[in-house]
């Protein structure tokens, strides 16, 4: 049996994989006429990968990229704890933009984009889960 070990890869490789996934997600969103407001919005509590807007809806997007399914589907990694973290971050972002009138009349949504990476840096599988949690 020659299983690929899902072991620890060098930090650089993991960060690179994350960036590749986010890049693929951004390209997808632009094609779907989302306007990207902010990427990698972060504070000491965490990070929101992408904040985008389409029409009247502002979407907070978490991107999960994986190179294999040994640990399950990529989107399964967004558990209750991660969801809470993203909600908190979103609330913080809203607080910072509360005087922005364009945002005041908007609705909000949380999406998850799940990317299974191929060897060549493209996507083997791609999923955009809209309204993934509330």
């Amino acid at each position, binding site marked *: 049996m020659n299983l690929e070990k899902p072991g620890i890869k060098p930090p650089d490789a993991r960060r690179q994989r994350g960036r590749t996934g986010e890049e693929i997600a951004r390209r997808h969103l632009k094609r779907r006429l989302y306007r990207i407001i902010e990427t990698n919005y972060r504070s000491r509590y965490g990070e929101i990968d992408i904040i985008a807007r389409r029409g009247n809806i502002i979407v907070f997007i978490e991107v999960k990229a994986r190179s294999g399914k040994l640990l399950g589907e990529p989107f399964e990694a967004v558990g209750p704890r991660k969801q809470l973290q993203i909600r908190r971050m979103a609330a913080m972002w809203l607080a910072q933009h509360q005087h922005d009138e364009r945002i*005041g009349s908007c609705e909000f949504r949380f999406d998850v984009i799940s990317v299974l990476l191929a060897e060549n840096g493209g996507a083997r599988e791609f999923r955009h889960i809209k309204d993934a949690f509330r």
Partner: protein
Amino acid sequence: MLARMQSHAVMGMDACPVSVEADLGRGLPAFSIVGLPDASVREAKERVRAAVANSQFEFPLRRITVNLAPADLRKEGPQFDLPIALSLLAASGQIKSTLLKHYAAAGELSLDGAVRSISGALSMAEGARRGRLCGLIVPEANAKEAALIGAVEVIGVSSLRQAAAFFCKEEKIEPARVDSAALLGAGLGIEPDLAEVKGQNLARRALEVCAAGGHNLLMIGPPGSGKTMLARRLPSILPRLDINEAIEVTRIYSVAGQLNGSCLISRRPFRSPHHTISHVGLAGGGASPRPGEVSLAHLGVLFLDELPEFSRMALETLRQPMEDGQISVSRALISVTYPSRFMLVAAMNPCPCGYLGDSRRTCSCPPQKVASYRNRISGPLMDRIDVAVEVPSLDKKDLMSTVKREASAPVAARVMAARRRQLERLNGSGVYCNAGMQARQTERFCHPVDDAVRLLESAIDRLGLNARSHQRVLKVARTIADLEGAAAIEPAHLAEAISYRSIDRRGWLGVE
């Protein structure tokens, strides 16, 4: 954006109005239910979300707050799903209707948007009538039951989509109607009949007397002598329920969630709980109280087979409902009262092995065991049983006999006539039969003729009747006189009534 509609929470037998408010606020999407919901109401969130999405509506991307007012009343049960979903759709502008606030709604939602049946719909219809609402939206399966109240427009819906269409006036739904007279007549003649009982003339007579006066009955006899068979035939000789009584019984079954699809209980209930029943099962209760067997037997028969085998606690529980015709169940959060005017019919063996006094088999029980077996039934409970009768095992002659035995119908006619006499006499006193008479009424209506008075005096001496059993003998004698249509209590009537007490003297029950 706020929308509001009415619903009801069932407390005991009554429905308390609950106002369901949905507010859509700005901010991150969230869905919270406030107003003292219990676990089943909190779970409504997931059902409502799925049902709304699966009914081709949009679940609003807003901060949703649902309030169930008044906030100090505990809400339980899944019946709030439908009003929550409807007020949510109204708040988000997907239903535009001015009708909403004039209707109450109740129903459980399934994930695909179908409306499932609920318990207590009849009480809710009564609540809607008292609240002067235009109408009530209920699951289709409960529509007929709720329509028994009349006076309120009852709309049965099968899906959330249909309920929404009704409010948008896209679909006209005819209010549910029931022909209660036809329902009451249904199911005639399918009860077990007295003609099937062989022999046991004494017990048959006792059964008739008890049915006529509403007296409680104890049958004592060896296994297989026909005690259970006789008891099961008691409902067939009792007067039929009138429509108001039928609704009263139906309401209890509705609250208990035991209607099982029928919309009117048209026959007197016959409940025979197993002797392993807990006192809570008998009296009703639980953290959120449900009616127990004594209430499910309301206006009918509660049959306790193997009486001494019931737990002491269960038997003592019977005392309050037998005395008051209702039972109060108090729990930490709530206290409710259920009606429980039933006829008690109990059966027991004469001793643990069952064959004491049997002509064909010998009893193997030591005397102290027999005494302790009988002592399990407390004096206060025995005090409430008017008629005790022995049911001996049948001999060969009775078993093989092919004589045509009297059927239930003529007996029922005699019982009905006797009851009518009692009703005329007790008119307007809130008592419906001889067994329910208070001391004052017994004094007034139970006058034995002079000869009978002398008989009674000697019985008091011989049997050692106490004040209470003296009263009981008079009431039973009154019933026997009523069965005959006699105005006064004759010696024969009194003699028969005393014979139903002779079991005391022989030390059959309680202390030797």
